[in-house]
């Protein structure tokens, strides 16, 4: 395990970058043309989710109920498309479900629903609850003497939810160092820039004041994300939060930094553009010589 979690570079970094682009392509295909979907927050998370599922997490896609697995809870449940994409790429969710998202015939709901979808660890979507669920899992895992880690991804807009800070206090109070929180700081919420809609200054200081270790990272530099996840795992006695600076809609020019694509509808032209841009980026990264 320790071997696997060492820094990534060269071929590994390239492999992970390519995976993240593939996940974004899955997301675009899941949303399709003329239908609303949470493109922006899914793309801002693509590199982080890739680092987790394809490098850091102890997670066997062939044994998804293994009690010793690491858990990933997407507290910002509206971005579940990126988790679906990762689970498809791992073979947990059949690829045939990709074009059936949010249909009665499909298993993939608009927000995480364990009832229908394999690989999901909790029901989220009503914002602010994921960290609490993670606290419960971490307490149970500790009682059972397991070493599993619990990763909880939150949105920066979501930090306005009061329950989340109740959970932050509890995680620190119980010394749940197996919890790593990740804030997807893409600085845009549903109706506009967070600075204008509901500014929450001093995010890092707030977490520190609540008793957490705080790391800041560029959420699109997978090697840096992997390193931060590794550092967080080594910090004992208190939980750690990684504040990841990201770009909403990252990788798709018309969706980048756009509140309209928090839950937007793509035209045929935009759909084609998105796939063309992601495909070109993937081809370019594939052809690069590993450093």
């Amino acid at each position, binding site marked *: 395990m320790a071997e696997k979690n060492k820094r990534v570079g060269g071929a590994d970094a390239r492999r992970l970058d390519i995976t993240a682009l593939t996940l974004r392509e899955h997301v675009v295909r899941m949303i399709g043309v003329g239908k609303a979907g949470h493109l922006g927050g899914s793309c801002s998370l693509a590199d982080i989710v890739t680092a987790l599922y394809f490098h850091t997490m102890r997670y066997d896609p062939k044994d998804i109920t293994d*009690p010793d697995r690491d858990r990933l809870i997407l507290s910002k449940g509206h971005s579940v498309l990126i988790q679906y994409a990762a689970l498809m790429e791992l073979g947990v969710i059949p690829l045939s479900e990709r074009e059936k998202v949010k249909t009665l015939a499909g298993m993939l709901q608009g927000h995480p629903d364990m009832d229908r979808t394999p690989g999901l660890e909790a029901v989220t979507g009503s914002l602010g609850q994921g960290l609490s669920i993670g606290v419960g899992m971490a307490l149970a895992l500790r*009682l059972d003497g397991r070493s599993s880690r619990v990763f909880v991804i939150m949105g920066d807009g979501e930090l306005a939810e009061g329950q989340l800070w*109740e959970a932050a206090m509890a995680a620190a109070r119980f010394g749940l160092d197996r919890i790593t929180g990740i804030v997807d700081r893409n600085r845009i919420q549903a109706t506009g820039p967070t600075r204008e809609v509901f500014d929450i200054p001093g995010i890092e200081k707030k977490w520190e004041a609540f008793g957490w270790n705080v790391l800041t990272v560029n959420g699109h530099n997978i090697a840096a994300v992997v390193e931060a996840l590794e550092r967080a795992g080594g910090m004992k006695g208190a939980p750690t939060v990684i504040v990841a600076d990201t770009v909403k809609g990252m990788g798709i020019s018309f969706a980048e930094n756009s509140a309209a694509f928090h839950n937007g509808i793509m035209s045929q032209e935009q759909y084609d553009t998105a796939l063309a841009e992601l495909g070109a980026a993937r081809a370019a990264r594939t052809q690069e010589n590993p450093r």
Partner: protein
Amino acid sequence: MTISKNPRMAYGEALVALGKRDPRVVALEADLGKSTQSVLFKAAFPDRHFEMGIAEQNMASTAAGLALAGKIPFIHSFAVFASGRVYDQLRNSVCIPNVNVRICGSSCGLSDFGDGKTHQSVEDVALMRALPNMSVLSPSDSIELTAMMEEILDWKGPVYIRVNRNDLPFTFPGDPSYRIGTVVRIRDGADAAIFASGIMVSKALDAARMLAEKGISARVLNVGTIKPLDRDAVIGFAEGARAIVTAEEHTVIGGLGSAVLEALRGVRHAPVELIGLHDSFGLSAESYDALLEHFGLTGEAIASAVRKLLEGKS
């Protein structure tokens, strides 16, 4: 009338018994452990008791996480907070994934008579009953409560249990074959059927005795499990009665009375009257009995409702 063990004490002791039986049982508290009696569990199993502070919402979702990881968590607060304050957490974190969280709604109904509207729960049954997957229990005394706790361990999905703060009269005869989900006839009678839950079962028995003195025989049905409600049993017990009265320590909107009427839909039945609070919050009072009387939650009120229905004057 014989007084049974205090329900809160019976609850606390039953929880300790479950903790001894099954290591998966854990308890979460929100700074009301002396009221809910989860302190007994804390003393017995300090490692499996979590004081979550005055943060009920976090407590409810934390319980979901514990349950998802294989534990059977019991969360505790006053009924008004354990249902309403955490409604969204119970709905999303707990009921949608249908996990085995048990919610102890302590000091239920008007039983916290002194503390007034903010601390009395008169709409919790309606809220909890509306949640898909949630079971709703309202024991009539500590004997029934203990019997429910025996079975609650292996019950599938989330369970909400109302626990009264005060000493209650013995009403439940005790039955080793007791099962959650059954409607129990605790007194037979031909003229009227009285469906009651919680403290109101003892009031219904009072009413039946008063009616008997007037030559009216009433059967008393204890509906300890308000959801899932045994519809066939309700229909069967209503059959032949010329008057049907429900009695609950709760608003008549969405509680036991509503549940009984839902069960009786589509079948011919006698006229029905609902005893309970009528679109009203509670009130501070000097005693529990005074408060119950203020809201007409008495044997006299039930008996009077039966007589009026029989006389066609409801």
